[in-house]
């Protein structure tokens, strides 16, 4: 029996798990290109949740997610947690937008208030065909937000995007489009938290125009029962700068798709991430940096610490297209396994079609340095504190990439709370 026959046997259209999963969802009515809705519907009707036979979901099982019975809700309270002092707060509670701030030099609007012309940005670089989650998001988003940093504007305070789930068994799809116009500069802070089981499914689309500068700290503080599948789709024009730090602190299953199209010369792209996993958690970071034009730099550093029965996945693809000469692309993924039951699946992939480039990648997975632990213990430090110090040191180079001190302090305080760290 070949795999296609298997697929057909397991996934008869009407009773597919995916169809079952979406029975309680209602399609949205945003006025973007109707063909996107038609395509999404068709993808969802004709496919099912990806299985581990699908290369890009090889280590991430979605069985438990597919068995959930979720619904959407309009119930909201104000968000409980707004970590930063910055007054620029955009809150999304249970998938509903609750308020939008006014920021000098930034235009912020709901997608439901946008013109058809503005909505042409929806799915401009996000592909629906091969991704049921993009299809789910596109078909079921009730609303979304368009944030445009105006030309030559520099926004000093962080723009906080606070995502909170306050109810259990909630499906929260949301679309956020961020445009950094020519020579603008802004810093975003994304914070995800919530309670109860559920699926948070955000899709972010970034358009970073010429000479614009956009940086982003993403903090994932989901609860032990929550599923989180997110896509950050980035498009960079010439002379632009993009940086993202993804800090995953908790959650049951977290999949981060981070795709960067570097379509201009002299761009800089920085992707950093760290994940600290405990028993029963899975974090899957899939990144793609696609260099289409010459003279660009990209740096990628992901570090993880895995404890208990946890699973980590890192898949980092870098493409350097034929005309993209003089590219410096570096990638590193390092992991420490603290328990015998933890497993890490790390796969760097470089595809280079230009001949004058500097690219490197490295992936390591090891245990804690027991000699160092012993050394610390001979100074009177308990085994537990020694391991905490070492863990903190290990992920320190990623945390050092966070420039905003308030965010650093916030992350540190969460680490103390979650892992009883000494700092």
């Amino acid at each position: 029996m070949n795999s296609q026959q298997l697929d057909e046997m397991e996934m008869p259209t009407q009773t597919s798990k995916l169809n079952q999963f979406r029975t309680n969802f209602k399609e949205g009515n945003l006025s973007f290109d109707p063909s996107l809705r038609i395509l999404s519907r068709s993808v969802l009707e004709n496919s099912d949740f990806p299985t581990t036979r699908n290369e890009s979901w090889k280590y991430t099982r979605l069985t438990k997610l597919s068995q959930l019975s979720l619904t959407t809700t309009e119930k909201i309270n104000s968000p409980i947690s707004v970590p930063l002092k910055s007054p620029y707060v955009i809150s999304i509670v249970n998938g509903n937008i609750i308020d939008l701030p006014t920021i000098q030099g930034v235009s912020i609007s709901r997608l439901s208030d946008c013109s058809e012309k503005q909505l042409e940005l929806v799915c401009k670089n996000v592909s629906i065909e091969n991704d049921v989650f993009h299809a789910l998001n596109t078909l079921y988003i009730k609303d979304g937000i368009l944030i445009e940093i105006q030309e030559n504007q520099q926004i000093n305070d962080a723009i906080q995007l606070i995502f909170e789930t306050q109810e259990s068994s909630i499906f929260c799809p949301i679309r956020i489009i961020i445009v950094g116009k020519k020579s603008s500069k802004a810093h975003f802070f994304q914070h995800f938290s919530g309670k109860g089981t559920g699926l948070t499914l955000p899709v972010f689309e970034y358009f970073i125009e010429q000479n614009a500068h956009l940086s982003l700290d993403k903090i994932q503080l989901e609860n032990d029962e929550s599923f989180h599948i997110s896509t950050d789709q980035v498009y960079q024009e010439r002379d632009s700068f993009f940086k993202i730090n993804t800090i995953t602190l908790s959650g049951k299953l977290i999949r981060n798709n981070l795709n960067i199209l570097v379509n201009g010369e002299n761009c800089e792209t920085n992707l950093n991430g760290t994940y600290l996993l405990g028993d029963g958690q899975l974090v899957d970071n899939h990144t793609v940096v696609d260099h289409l034009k010459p003279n660009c730099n990209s740096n990628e550093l992901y570090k993880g610490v895995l404890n208990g029965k946890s699973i980590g996945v890192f898949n980092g693809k870098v493409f350097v297209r034929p005309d993209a000469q003089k590219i410096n692309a570096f990638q590193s993924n390092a992991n420490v396994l603290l328990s015998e039951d933890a497993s890490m699946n790390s796969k760097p992939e470089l595809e280079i079609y230009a001949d004058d480039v500097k690219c490197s990648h490295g992936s390591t997975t090891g245990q804690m340095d027991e000699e160092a632990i012993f050394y610390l213990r001979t100074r009177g430090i308990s085994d537990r504190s020694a391991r905490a110090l070492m863990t903190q040191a290990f992920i320190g180079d990623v945390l050092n990439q966070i420039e905003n001190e308030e965010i650093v302090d916030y992350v540190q305080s969460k680490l103390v709370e979650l892992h009883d760290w000494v700092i």
Partner: protein
Amino acid sequence: MIKINNLHASIDGKKILKGLNLTVNAGEVHAIMGPNGAGKSTLSSVLAGREEYEVTEGSVDFNGIDLLELSTEDRAREGLFLAFQYPIEIPGVSNVNFLRTAMNEIREYKGLDPISAKDFMTMVREKSALVELDSKLASRAVNEGFSGGEKKRNEIFQMAMLEPKLAILDETDSGLDIDALRIVANGVNQLKSAQNATIVITHYQRLLDYIIPDFVHVLFDGRIVKTGTKELAVELEEKGYDWIKDEFSTVG
């Protein structure tokens, strides 16, 4: 201070210590010398609680406590300090952060409140001056990128900060030039008091010109075979260890 009685220890089934006896009292400095493979580093490892070593026989009394029953960290908290022969580099962990954690865990063990940040920094300044350690090194990652001499000075700096009752210096002098040796020895001498004691494990008599021992022991084949005063060290330097080997290798 410490009474080691008939200590036997092995690693991977290989016997290294074979009935070692040693008593050190408060206020004393003891030097342990011996050829390679005699068991010098094994002794310091066993006393510090390195788990790869198995103690098969004997006892170690440390100020009335059964030392061998304690975890490595509790030994340190009771006042035992080991200056490593090869100090470990720990990237990302700052010297200062590490020492403050150590001091506070020791203080907590003794039922004391954590040291204030101000008192701690004052102490860092004083003690780093003692071993002429650049205060910049105090805030760098533990031993990372330190020269050999800086690593050894950092060991003595840590010892000065933690104020142990018994310090064991495991070949702290090896690889040091005269200047570095003088600084390290000077630090050790200044920390000496009637209440604490030092065991200096060394290969070279040279160190003992700077740290004057009250007793010199020769460790050979897992036991102390000879004990004398600092003149014994001079004799060993002149004559080497062969005569010790000739005299004792037939025994046992």
